[in-house]
């Protein structure tokens, strides 16, 4: 029999609901796997130990009494460390917030708790979600479960690695420019970046508010859809959250590929994209076509402007969002400082890592007087034009197919030396955030080094159903995906 820790979240939930499996057994299987692999994986920054026993009992009783009757009740999960959890440290993988414990739960976490899910811990990430490898974490390096010499991707690298290695069946990540989809592709798991406004950002420590979105990570499309159904929906505490009606889990993943119009933008398959990645995705497209999808290559304009527009907007917002970390109210305060401005300067100098500082500087620059029009406003204009490009594409297509990243996971220690190169590798994912679109990354093969390749299915705003439906149908065609093959001991 398959090891319990590799069972899908929905199957676990179903067995728990009918009494075939105890919540405790499900949790224990994860804890055993964590004990086995964590010392080399380093996916977790904090574990939810205190109160776990009590929570298991509470959920077991709740399930018996019918209070928790959803498909994920009793299912263990992990949460990225930039999402607030009451009483549990939330550090954004930064020295700045090393000892920060929130007084409230993020809305997405609150909804998971209300579903009866069991939170096992907080996962590693790039510092303040700034990075594509999880290597900018102040605390530790998470490795790729498929090959420990490679990065898991980022910034939600901890969550994706934990799910891939069977530590938890599902986890929450956040996606500002690809931070769910890219590590999901590197780790061979599924990751959904929902439409902007679908999931409340309340309790998500902001990187770039107009681009950030919390999303689910799982080993199957259905698991992602199930967790998405739990966390999505209007929240009064987030003015940007949407009240659009939601589909049920069943509606989200059923329907198949027949008659679906799918566009393949040739600009995202060109120079800079690994041949192996290109081939794997085009093969997947071919198999989808055989199932009745209409596949068509098309030209997506303005792709040269994606990276500059994204980094200007994201850094501008970040420079302001991160101002609150000043040593006054919470977080790191330099012990050296003797006067106010020195305290600001030293606390921020010592508390933030290099990549965070780079983006704060970049963002402060593009907002400063004299440059605002030339950079920030121009980036907003580019964003509006890129949106029009996608609007036009979605008049013709239900979904757009693209790589989740131009290559598979790079080796540890090779990315941070050239930030610009790292930024450029976000080419496949940032458009989705600029336009507020939903997109899912689903594994579609391995490269010659045995590292997973991810295919991205992008939809129009609020069309999660279409992309999940397409991804689920493709996943069924593809068949079971090889498990991360590491021997851990």
């Amino acid at each position, binding site marked *: 029999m398959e090891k319990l820790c590799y069972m899908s979240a929905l199957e676990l939930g179903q067995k728990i609901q009918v009494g075939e499996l105890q919540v405790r057994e499900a949790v224990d299987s994860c804890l055993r796997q964590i004990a086995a692999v964590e010392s080399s994986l380093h996916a977790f920054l904090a574990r939810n130990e205190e109160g776990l026993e009590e929570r298991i009992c509470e959920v077991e009783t709740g399930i018996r009494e019918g209070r928790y009757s959803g498909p994920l009740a009793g299912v263990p999960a992990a949460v990225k460390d930039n999402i607030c959890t009451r009483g549990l440290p939330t550090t954004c993988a930064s020295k700045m917030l090393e000892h920060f414990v*929130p007084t409230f739960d993020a809305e997405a976490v609150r909804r998971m708790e209300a579903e009866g899910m069991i939170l096992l811990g907080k996962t590693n990430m790039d510092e303040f979600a700034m990075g594509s490898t999880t290597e900018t974490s102040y605390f530790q390096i998470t490795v790729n479960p498929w090959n420990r010499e490679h990065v898991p991707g980022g910034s939600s690298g901890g969550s994706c690695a934990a799910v891939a290695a069977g530590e938890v069946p599902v986890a929450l990540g956040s996606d500002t420019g690809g931070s769910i989809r890219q590590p999901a592709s590197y780790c061979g798991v599924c990751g959904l970046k929902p439409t902007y406004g679908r999931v409340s950002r309340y309790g998500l420590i*902001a990187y770039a508010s107009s681009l950030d979105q919390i999303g689910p990570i799982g080993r199957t499309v259905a698991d992602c859809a199930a967790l998405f159904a739990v966390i999505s929906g209007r929240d009064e505490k987030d*003015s940007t959250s949407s009240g659009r009606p939601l589909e049920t889990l069943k509606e989200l993943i059923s329907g198949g590929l027949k008659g679906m119009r799918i566009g393949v933008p040739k600009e995202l398959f060109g120079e800079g994209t690994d041949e192996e990645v290109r081939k794997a995705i085009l093969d997947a497209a071919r198999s989808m076509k055989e199932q009745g999808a209409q596949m068509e290559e098309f030209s997506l304009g303005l792709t040269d402007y994606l990276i500059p527009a994204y980094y200007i907007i994201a850094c*501008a917002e970040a420079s302001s969002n991160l101002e*609150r970390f000043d040593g006054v109210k919470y977080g790191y305060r330099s012990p050296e400082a003797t006067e*106010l401005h020195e305290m*600001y300067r030293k606390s921020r100098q010592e508390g933030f890592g290099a990549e965070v500082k780079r983006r704060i500087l970049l963002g402060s620059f593009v*907002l400063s007087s004299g440059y*605002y029009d030339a950079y920030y406003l121009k980036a907003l204009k580019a964003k509006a034009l890129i949106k029009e490009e996608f609007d036009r594409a979605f008049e013709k297509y239900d979904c757009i197919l693209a790589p989740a990243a131009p290559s598979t996971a790079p080796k540890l220690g090779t990315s941070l030396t050239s930030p610009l190169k790292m930024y450029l590798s976000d080419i496949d994912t940032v458009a989705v955030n600029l336009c507020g679109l939903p997109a899912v990354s689903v594994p579609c093969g391995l490269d010659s080094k045995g590292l997973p390749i991810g295919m991205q299915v992008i939809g129009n705003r609020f069309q999660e159903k279409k992309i999940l439906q397409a991804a689920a149908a493709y996943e069924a065609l593809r068949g079971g995906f090889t498990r991360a093959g590491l021997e851990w001991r």
Partner: protein
Amino acid sequence: MAKQYETVIGLEVHVELATATKIFCGCSTKFGGRPNTHTCPVCTGMPGSLPVLNQKVVEYALKLGLALNCEINRYCQFDRKNYFYPDNPQNYQISQLYLPICHDGYLEIDVSGEKKKIRIHEMHMEEDAGKLIHDEWEDCSLVDYNRSGVPLLEIVSEPDMRTAEEVIAYLEKLRMLCRYLGVSDCKLQEGSMRADVNLSVREAGSRGLGTRTEMKNLNSFKAITHAIEGERERQIELLADHRQVVQETRRWDDNKEASYGMRSKEDAKDYRYFPDPDLQPVVISDEWLKKLRGEQPEFQEERRERFQKAYGLSEYDAGILTQSRHLADLFETVADLSGFPKKTANWLMVEGLRILKEKGQEPEELSFTPKHLAELIQAVERGEINHANARLVFEQILDADVEPLHFMEEQGMRMVSDDGALAAAVEETLCENPKVVEEYRSGKEKVFGFLVGQVMKKMMGKADPGRVNELLKKRL
């Protein structure tokens, strides 16, 4: 001959809105709570918290904007003003720069009979900051975020004022509008109205503007007047001396009655304003505006004219009664209930305002049941209570909202109003004092007072002196 100079003044006025909750969270705006008790993750800038706009703030801004004859930006947004200071928990203030809610309006002022339009450049919504308190004992600074996130409107005028009188008239008019609308209590001393004065001088007849300074920390009309006069002289002296006025912010010191330069604008901060991505743009619909237009109250001028016409009040009296919407409302209700508008006006203006002045209170603080005052006035007019006693009852109504008729009865102030008893007392008095009657009849009118006193004595004070006079005169 010495050169003539003209003063050019523009105002930036902050008005604290009278909403029950803060602008971006549900915390109370009440004044005076223990430090950091009216706070939550949003107004203390906790990581992960998000602002949600209080619609009441927009409504108040629109109401004042309409009263100031402003254009309304039907699509406006909030911007972040970035600067580091501990009273500002996020290190950015949520304000409006690029698309403020109102712009291009005016306010008409009246200075010694001359009407003048002061143009409004723009008006925007923003959040207040917390308060820093320096603890000398511990040698550290503490911050209280109770005021953080309290809604403010900033009203920026054009440099259209020329004298301190015009400035005061502008502020009084603005305060009257805010109070009539109920959007703010506008107390300078408590900081719910704050005015920064931008002032420059230029040679009379010149059209260009001189270098201006901005004065802050002006907590009373007196301080504003003195600051303007002092700054005008200071600048004229500089110019007469062929020296430059430095563009700077100056802080008024109330104790020293002088202003001091704070920092020059040369090292002006770059606030890196940009639209706040956490908040959706505010879209103001036709229906909403229409509804608010319909709800605008009758302001002082219209009301004053109506009071003159409908109640026969003098312009002066009507002006005083309409200074405060609350006072005008009270007057109108009591006048209608009692049927004696002029008497009502007298009671409120002479006795009412005297008592308020003694207590150091504002007309807004009058809180009694209008019916009670109406009953008292009627009792006076029916001759059931003499004036001295009526004043006592009036004080009781203001203090404790007593029911006057009941109170008069209890205190034995109610006068015998049936003329029978009074007539008998008059007869008795005349019989008992034939000599005095004789003296009076022979032209010694001074003795009349003695007779009145005798009658009152018989009535144990419970008689209307006017009626006593009347009856006595008739019999003599």
